[in-house]
């Protein structure tokens, strides 16, 4: 009798391979992301008189992105995130004013200092949740603002820092009047950091953050050091916010107290909600939508502008909690459903 061929059992994927597949899937580039970056690049070419606005949109987007990491991925609500933006801005400004005008190293220093501040804050807040956490971040933010206000000798107080001179990038590309250098510099930095952020969220660490967001009590039960993760999340988010602040200081050559204000912290929340929390690209899209709208409608009475933004917030939170990206996703699902029916 011939031996019955028993087919060899199909190879079982090791857990490593399974994890790899999961991450490969979740980290594929969504079309919204590609669309955004292509649009950003094109607009630099197509709108040569709006370069400063584009740069500021990217900076605000980076700031919102750092906040998304904190609030959208780790689920840590904070009303004091502007503190890190401001720390980065003032660091870069003071550095340049005291003679160290090289921009890229300025960004690094700002990131480090802001990151240290984030680490320090995380130590304090790691045992709080909910309202207590929100309050203490609010309190720290206000405290920092007040201190900066009083420390007129260092920060310039209400008048802010001015006379910040930045050396040309790589010794060659000087910051020009039209903002050409500024916008390309900003574009490259923000894109790089965006890629870094993507890498972070599509990694095991990113999953842990989402776990914290979904069920913070369970996380230690599966062996993840909660406090440690908080600290890393805060530090990274703070460092990114610091870079955003430093960029703003470098391209506008001024720093004002508004970089530390509660308004800016609230803005981060607004942008992330408008764009879509926990999507990374949502932060950038939200920033772009908000600032373009504000620029176009700035002719409109500012009183009315605030009213409409407030109304928009209420409507978004009532009907569109996924923000713009969430809305787009739902639209796509709806279109596909329609197509598959017909």
């Amino acid at each position: 009798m011939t031996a019955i061929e028993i087919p060899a059992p199909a190879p079982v994927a090791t857990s490593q391979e399974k994890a790899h597949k999961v991450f490969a899937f979740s980290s594929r580039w969504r079309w919204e992301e590609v669309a955004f970056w292509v649009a950003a690049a094109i607009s630099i070419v197509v709108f040569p008189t709006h370069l400063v606005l584009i740069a500021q949109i990217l900076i605000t987007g980076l700031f919102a992105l750092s906040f998304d990491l904190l609030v959208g991925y780790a689920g840590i609500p904070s009303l004091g995130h502007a503190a890190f933006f401001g720390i980065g801005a003032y660091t870069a400004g003071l550095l340049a004013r005291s003679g160290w005008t090289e921009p890229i190293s300025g960004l690094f220093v700002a990131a480090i200092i802001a990151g240290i501040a984030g680490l320090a804050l995380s130590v304090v807040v790691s045992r709080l949740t909910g309202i207590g956490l929100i309050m203490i971040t609010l309190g720290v933010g206000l405290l920092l603002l007040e201190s900066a206000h009083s420390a007129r000798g260092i920060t310039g107080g209400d008048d802010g820092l001015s006379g910040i001179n930045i050396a040309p990038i790589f010794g060659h590309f000087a910051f020009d009047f039209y903002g050409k250098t500024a916008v390309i510099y900003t574009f490259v930095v923000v894109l790089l950091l965006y890629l870094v952020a993507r890498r972070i969220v599509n990694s095991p660490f990113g999953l842990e953050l989402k776990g914290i967001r979904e069920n913070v009590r369970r996380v230690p039960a599966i062996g993840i050091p909660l406090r440690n993760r908080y600290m890393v999340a805060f530090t990274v988010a703070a460092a990114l916010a610091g870079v955003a602040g430093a960029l703003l200081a470098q391209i506008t050559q001024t720093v004002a107290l508004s970089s530390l204000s509660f308004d800016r912290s609230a803005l981060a929340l607004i942008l992330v909600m408008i764009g879509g929390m926990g999507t990374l690209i949502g932060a950038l899209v939200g920033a772009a939508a908000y600032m373009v709208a504000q620029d176009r409608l700035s002719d409109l009475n500012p009183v009315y502008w605030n009213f409409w933004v407030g109304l928009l917030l209420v409507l978004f939170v009532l009907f569109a909690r996924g923000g713009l990206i969430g809305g787009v996703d739902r639209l796509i699902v709806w279109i596909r459903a329609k197509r598959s029916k017909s």
Partner: protein
Amino acid sequence: MKRYRRATFLAAGMLILGAGTVLGDQTPIRIGVIYSFSSAGGTAGREFNDVVALFQRQHGDTIDGRKIEIITRDDGGIAPDNAKRLAQELIVQEHVDMLAGLIFTPNAVAVGTVSTPSKTPVFIVNATTSNIMAKNPYMSRYSMTATQVTVPLAKYAYKTGMRNMYVIYMDYGPGIDSGQTFENSFTAEGGKVLGEIRVPVNATDFSAYLQRMKDAKPDGIYIFLNANGSGTTFLKQAKAQGFDKAGIKIFCAGDLVTEQVLPAIGEASIGVISSMNYSGTHDSKLNRDFIKAFEAQSGGLPPTFGGVGTYDAFTAMYKVIEAQKGQIDPDKTMEIVKTLKFESPRGPIAIDPDTRDIVQNVYIRRTELRGGKLVNTEIDTYPMFRDPSEHA
């Protein structure tokens, strides 16, 4: 805040002018305005719009065949990054021939960094810190400086018998300028400053500060608070805490007792001595006409020093445009600016050729009740006073 842009006017104008008129460029002359129209600027934005409307009604909106187009942008308060971006956009996108406006010093400084490389003349309507002018050769100012207006008050205080005073001011550019100028001048006259209090910009409750000052038993106090209404609360609290009963005289910067705010302060303002570059009661036909036109435009509100600064800045801009017959050259513009001397609703003014800053009468006024209305009556004048700190 409106865009003064009417494509139809432009088209009609070009048609008419195309019918064979004379020299070169018939595109409109564009003035870019950066101001704080939002609530951060208080009522300044509204006053600005009213003044511009009435000015163009009086003087028309065309010079030598070219239309004057005014493009406004809101900087949202103290926001130098915004102001700088708006200035860049106005120059690069809208091709403005000159800029005007500016309330807050950081914004003015930021705009200066744009004005100088691009050679765009800037006509400052409001910002009052002295050190803005030095680094920006294309800027000129039509309001006042804190120093300019404060030194005469210190002299007057000493002249009228004050020997010990307490000083309180808001902790930002103009406040620090005013407060420290007062202290230095008063001390130079021979007086003694018992102490100073720096108040945060958004302070609302002054009772503790007032008590501290009262306990020091000064002959008088000097106050600088911004014109947004915190002065109202301050003066009322001073009265509630018995400053008048204690015989402590109140000297302040005119910002606290502007014509628009006096009704809100009420009786607590009577007897206050202030210094300013403008009073509603200034006795000249030009002023009376100005006030009448303004009240008609604003629906009953009186003009303040902010409105007068705007009016004179526009007078200057129109003069400059007329003198160049509609062909604006930045360097020639500044040459003309340095020679400007004319009558303003506040009195005679001139531009100092060295500093491009304003030279004007500084009035000492007392707030009193006249005919049932609270007014600032001029009781002394320091004529054609220059900011001493700018001539170091």
